[in-house]
């Protein structure tokens, strides 16, 4: 049946394929995961239906005609909307990322070491809630950056994230990436968005509440805070843009050696970098003698002051975030992006 010319030419032209047993294994694993997610989503949907029936029927019987809200909660209730409401827990089914009108975008909250191959991953800290206003503009900007990408430079302190996108026809797409200059992958379709960090940053900015118009006065403490690692919530830092910022520098004697204000653009970059540029290394006892950097950033969020503290003691720079109530969360080693975003007074002398 084959044309003697074109058939032969095509067959001769095809290069040797790679090891396809690896491809088969990946396909099998992905298909199993997909099936598991689908079953989970179906079970979740069944539970929701049962719950809705249990709650709704008595109300209906009592004549309560209150209409339930849409599944995509608006930006105003971003702090309370569960991430599994719209998209994160269900299978992706949007055929073509390049088409369709995006009606909502949200971060998925991922658990450490889940859904990834290779060593356990660290995930960026993200706000809950969903973006509806401006979702299409944000997705259009990402579409402009879909292309073929080859490799990416190494950057220390990258963290993983996942974004779910809902379209007007009810389908869902997903972007997975790591903060930093490497590409993010689009599912389904396998397209790549250049520079995953821009996807993360764009959604972080879009989800952040507007800064307060009357920020509190900031002043550097005479001494840097002494941290204790506690597991506190960073929700507010993840969901609000700073209204003012001040960076304090300390010397090896723990005395204040300088301070400099940050404009709001750089303050928000610092906030976003804090939540996305760190590597989780437990223990802080090593290299305690030699302080080479001790910088504290004060970020005003509404009327509260959050503190980002980076201390380098001869080894890696360690990162803490202090809540307004004084609780400290130790995040690990500060990534290069955060160090770039945090103004530095220069290396101090040995302590």
């Amino acid at each position, binding site marked *: 049946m084959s044309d003697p010319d074109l058939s032969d030419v095509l067959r001769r032209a095809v290069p040797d394929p790679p090891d396809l047993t690896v491809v088969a294994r990946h396909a099998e694993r992905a298909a199993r995961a*997909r099936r598991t997610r689908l079953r989970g989503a179906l079970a979740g949907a069944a539970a929701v239906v049962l719950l809705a029936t249990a709650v709704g029927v008595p109300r209906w019987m009592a004549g309560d005609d209150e209409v339930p809200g849409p599944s995509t909660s608006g930006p105003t209730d971003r702090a309370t909307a569960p991430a599994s409401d719209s998209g994160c827990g269900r299978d992706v089914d949007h055929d073509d990322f390049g088409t369709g009108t995006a009606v909502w975008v949200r971060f998925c909250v991922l658990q450490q070491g889940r859904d990834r191959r290779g060593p356990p991953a660290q995930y960026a800290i993200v706000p809950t809630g969903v973006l509806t206003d401006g979702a299409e503009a944000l997705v259009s900007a990402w579409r402009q950056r879909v292309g073929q990408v080859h490799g990416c430079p190494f950057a220390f302190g990258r963290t993983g994230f996942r974004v779910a996108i809902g379209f007007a026809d009810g389908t869902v797409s997903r972007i997975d990436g790591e903060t930093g200059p490497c590409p993010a992958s689009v599912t389904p379709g396998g397209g790549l968005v250049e520079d995953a960090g821009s996807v993360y940053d764009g959604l972080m900015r879009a989800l952040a509440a507007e800064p307060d118009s009357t920020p509190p006065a900031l002043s550097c403490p005479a001494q840097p805070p002494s941290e204790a690692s506690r597991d506190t919530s960073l929700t507010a830092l993840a969901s609000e843009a700073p209204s003012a910022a001040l960076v304090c520098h300390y010397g090896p004697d723990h005395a204040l050696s300088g301070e400099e204000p940050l404009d709001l653009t750089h303050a928000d970059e610092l906030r976003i970098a804090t939540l996305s540029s760190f590597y989780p290394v437990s223990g802080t006892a090593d290299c305690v003698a030699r302080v080479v950097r001790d910088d504290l950033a004060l970020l005003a969020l509404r009327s509260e002051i959050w503190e980002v503290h980076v201390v380098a003691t001869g080894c890696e720079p360690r990162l803490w975030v202090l809540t307004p109530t004084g609780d400290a969360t130790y995040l690990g080693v500060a990534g290069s992006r955060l160090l770039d975003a945090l103004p530095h007074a220069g290396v101090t002398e040995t302590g």
Partner: protein
Amino acid sequence: MDEEFTAYVAARGRALWGAAWLLTGDPALAEDLVQTALTKTWPHFERVAADGSFEGYVRRTLVTTYLSWRGRRWHGELPSGSGDDVATGLAALNPDADTTHDVRRAMAQLSPRQRAVVVLRYFGDLSEEQTARAMGCSVGSVKTHHARALERLRGSGLLDLSEPTEEHR
């Protein structure tokens, strides 16, 4: 089922990957395409393989997946230059590198649907009816894409093709 599926991929993977490479013109994208098609078809392997139609099912999924990727920027923009890096890379993959390079450049001049028709008809040895079923379109549409694809391939000057036989018209 796992072993049977792996055995199927070992036996037929080369043909699937070859079709995917001809469609995409890129080894990495071809791998991506094959993996996506296999992921979609794996859950139905036992059921469909029982009646011997799994090959057609995978092929149809491969093609429809490829066509659904048409919004991606790389479609229709396969590198057609004669860069040393491309030639060197292809030479490493295939000793018949000149043919590979020419076919890749010639296929890049076709639309996704024209590419799909050429691959199914000439690489997959499918009839017009089978090609239409695999692509989910009419036989008339296949004939149109086929004629225009051959016209472009001849016009490219990259492939020395004879006039189509009656069977391929």
